[in-house]
């Protein structure tokens, strides 16, 4: 058997390590949203958008290819999100089209020729990849935005299995402006510059009068807001001349009247496209569309190369946020909120105060009871209990685990339950003392007999806690983790540390006749 002093050396080293890890607790222990205030969001990426975008891109490519090769095709249109229908061609054109499709660049597409119609369909694995990438890209974009905004220790991760889940979990602790940050994340910031064909008019009907009330295939209606605040509608070309993807940079600037606006610069590829479009459509209007709403629709007076300005009804702050969003990239697809929890900082502060108060009161009650009931041995149990709390704190800090309000409840519960191990041991010791054994023999026997019981009893709570951890979310995970750590720690403190203290007493006094228990 190891000497008592080695045991104590081990205990002191272990406790010292945990103290060093956990001190000062205010800095070392990560607080959960419920204690710090902040935002918890679960977003669903509408990956259909991304698939649709790929299909639209393909249509654009087909049209330009047919045009280049002089293939006469009346209609190339999208069906649903991932199918393209090519219609209105003669038999000569059919062979040409098929030749184009076989040529390459279409490896992600299956095509099917039927009477007067060719249907292209996106391949399954390509679709899965697109959806997966859309979620990944959305995650990165959100991370960019959050980082630029400056949130400490954000959690941004996909929920569930990569490649399948369309959900992203975002947790932003300590945010003081929840509404603003939420807007920042949520907005897709899809910037599109499209050529205006008709409009603006105050109503859709009027806008489409020329077209017998029907929107032509390659065009779409986009709403806008007039300076006076009323609705107006534009008929624009479906295919964007330039999109947010072509942006290199975006900054807050001023329009010609000195009002806040967002100026942007384009990448080389984008600049080329922009130059071509502005050259071809000089004198027409160009709609600057952000997230499906026309911000402004200036007339193209001259060929524009690589920079432009977005005017709208901005304040300095909203212009700043828009620039930030455009800089960090647009979301590849729109986003829906599935879950949104905002905890104000004041509620968090209140919760932590109350939680700590409950903890100290609970602790004092237990300490008082143990000392009252078991006298000096109770002090032993109290030492074990306090060390237990130190270990929980240290372990939380070490694993970067989050302390939540249910987590504090877990610690409080552990305080009540961890003395259980001591109680089991002490009761056994008392029984043996009653049988007339010497204190030393009774202590030895008590620890030995009680250990297996303690182990069996605690392991089951750990099992429950593990399942809680597995299935639980945020705060519940915090509860499970403190419970697990607390129980494991209590096995160490109540069994090893308490015993060492008893042995120390026996070692210091040569003859121990009675035990204060």
């Amino acid at each position: 058997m190891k000497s008592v002093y080695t045991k104590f050396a081990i205990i002191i080293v272990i406790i010292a390590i945990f103290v060093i890890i956990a001190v000062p607790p205010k800095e070392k222990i990560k607080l959960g949203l419920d204690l710090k205030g902040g935002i918890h969001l679960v977003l669903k990426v509408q990956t259909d958008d991304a698939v649709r975008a790929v299909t639209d891109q393909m249509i654009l490519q087909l049209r330009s290819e047919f045009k280049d090769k002089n293939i006469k095709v009346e209609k190339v249109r999208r069906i649903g999100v991932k199918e393209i229908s090519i219609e209105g061609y003669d038999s000569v054109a059919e062979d040409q089209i098929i030749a184009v499709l076989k040529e390459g660049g279409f490896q992600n597409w299956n095509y099917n020729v039927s009477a007067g119609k060719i249907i292209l369909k996106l391949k399954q694995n390509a679709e899965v990849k697109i959806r997966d990438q859309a979620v990944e890209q959305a995650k990165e974009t959100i991370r960019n935005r959050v980082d630029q905004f400056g949130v400490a220790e954000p959690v941004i991760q996909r929920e569930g299995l990569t490649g399948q889940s369309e959900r992203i979990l975002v947790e932003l602790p300590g945010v003081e402006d929840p509404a603003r940050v939420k807007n920042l994340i949520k907005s897709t910031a899809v910037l599109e510059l499209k050529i205006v064909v008709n409009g603006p008019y105050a109503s859709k009907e009027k806008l489409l009068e020329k077209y017998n009330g029907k929107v032509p295939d390659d065009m779409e209606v986009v709403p806008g807001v007039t300076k006076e605040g009323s609705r107006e509608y534009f008929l624009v070309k479906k295919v964007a001349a330039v999109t947010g993807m072509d942006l290199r940079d975006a900054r807050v600037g001023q329009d010609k009247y000195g009002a806040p606006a967002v100026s942007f610069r384009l990448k080389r590829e984008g600049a080329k496209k922009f130059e071509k479009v502005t050259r071809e459509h000089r004198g027409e209007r160009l709609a600057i569309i952000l997230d499906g709403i026309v911000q402004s629709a200036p007339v193209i007076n001259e060929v524009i190369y690589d920079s432009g300005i977005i005017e709208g009804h901005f304040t300095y702050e909203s212009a700043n946020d828009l620039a930030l969003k455009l800089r960090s990239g647009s979301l590849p697809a729109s986003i829906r909120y599935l879950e949104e929890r905002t905890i104000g900082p004041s509620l968090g502060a209140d919760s932590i105060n109350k939680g700590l108060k409950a903890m100290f009161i609970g602790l004092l009650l237990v300490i008082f009871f143990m000392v009252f009931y078991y006298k000096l041995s109770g002090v032993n149990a109290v030492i074990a209990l306090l060390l237990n709390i130190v270990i929980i704190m240290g372990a939380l800090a070490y694993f970067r685990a989050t302390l939540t309000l249910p987590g504090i409840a877990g610690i409080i519960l552990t305080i009540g339950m961890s003395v259980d191990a001591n109680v089991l041991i002490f009761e056994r010791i008392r029984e043996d003392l009653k049988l007339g054994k010497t204190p030393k023999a009774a202590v030895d026997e008590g620890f030995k007999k009680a250990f297996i019981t303690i182990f069996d009893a605690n392991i089951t709570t750990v099992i429950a806690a593990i399942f809680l951890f597995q299935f639980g979310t945020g705060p519940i995970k915090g509860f499970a983790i403190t419970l697990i750590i607390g129980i494991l720690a209590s096995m160490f403190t109540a069994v090893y540390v308490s015993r060492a203290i008893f042995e120390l007493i026996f070692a210091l006094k040569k003859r121990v006749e009675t035990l204060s228990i």
Partner: protein
Amino acid sequence: MEFFKNPNFKFMKFKYIAFILSFVVITAGGISVYVKKGFSLSIDFAGGTLVQINFKNDVSVDKVRKSLKNVDLGKSIIQKLGEGHEFTIKAQKVSSKSIEEENMEKPEEVANKIVDALRTEEEKQLLKEGKLDLNISEKSFIKNLLLQITGDEAKAEEYATKIADYKKKHLGIIKSFDEIKNLLPKDVFEKLKEKSFLGNIALLRVEIVGPQVGKDLRYKATQATIWALIGMLIYIAFRFKFLFGVSAVLTLTHDILVTLSFISFFNKEISLTIVAGILTIVGYSLNDTIVIYDRVRDNLKKYVKKLGIEEILDVSINETLSRTIITSGTTLLTVLALYIFGGEVIRDFAFTMLVGIISGTYSSIYQSCAYIGIWEKRKEKKAKEKKIANLKRIEERKKSEVKKVKEETVPPPQKEERKPAQKTAKSSKRKSTKKSKKKKKKR
């Protein structure tokens, strides 16, 4: 100090009374759930919008409801929290369209609607005049205003932080301008006072859960509970006899049912934290049960030929009684502290734990041990009956043939039945225990 000096209570004598008690509580719980048309689920599981608000002044639930009626939210569940001016409002629309659907489209909408509804006419007028409500505004808005006043970015940030910190300490509410007078230089303070006002409410928490997430969380919680139970059954069956495992799981089921009954009696909502509470109870109650089982296992060896199963159980329970009471006591003390001082958010969790600890302590004696008692006694009785029958048969056969028949043709006892068998006469009990023990050994 000791609570009990050598306790010797005859626990098992009252087991049927205990069964009746449990039966009554659980049946009443079932009726309560039926009458109330199921449990009320929190937004975690049902989806919906929950807003927690702190009022500057004392407000009654009726007044809040009246205001909400104006925006079609009159059916909302409004709860006043504790002594202060805090309320939670679970938004419920009067009209038919599901609030979640509408809500997830425009997350801010319902929360904003509630805030607007709770504003007084006077406040609305002040807002129209372009004044800023310091109580409901986030820090960046306050900073913006201070930037306009001071024209100095760093100073605006400094003052805004001071105000935000003050709000943090006072649940988001500044009651009068005097409270923040000393936080700012006089001129800034005067200008701020001119351009802002102190609104009636502060928004403490907004939670919106979509129906899909609610469904997922429901599934996850059920999974967690089921797997935890299976895990424990396996562990106990592994560590003890299978019968002990079954009894333990029956006990846990009892505790879960009792807790759920009380949740229904007191109209508590089932939320994620409540599920966590229930699972903790499962662990805790099992903890208790195992300690007693452990003793039973020891004592079965110790008293194998001396005592009947019920006596062994009684001895075991009495021997561990001090421990049971003390551990339940300390845990109860801490949970009580949590219930009283832990604040509203955690109170329902503490309530669940209170019920569960009491139920778990009681059940580890009166459920887990009682099952074993009944089962073992049945086995004893069966064995005895078989033996008498065998003896008779042997005698008859002896008469007809003069051939010996082996004693060991006793088929194993039938599947367990919950209904108690007729009480055996006390005198015959001890004898039969010995027999059954012998047989067990032989097997």
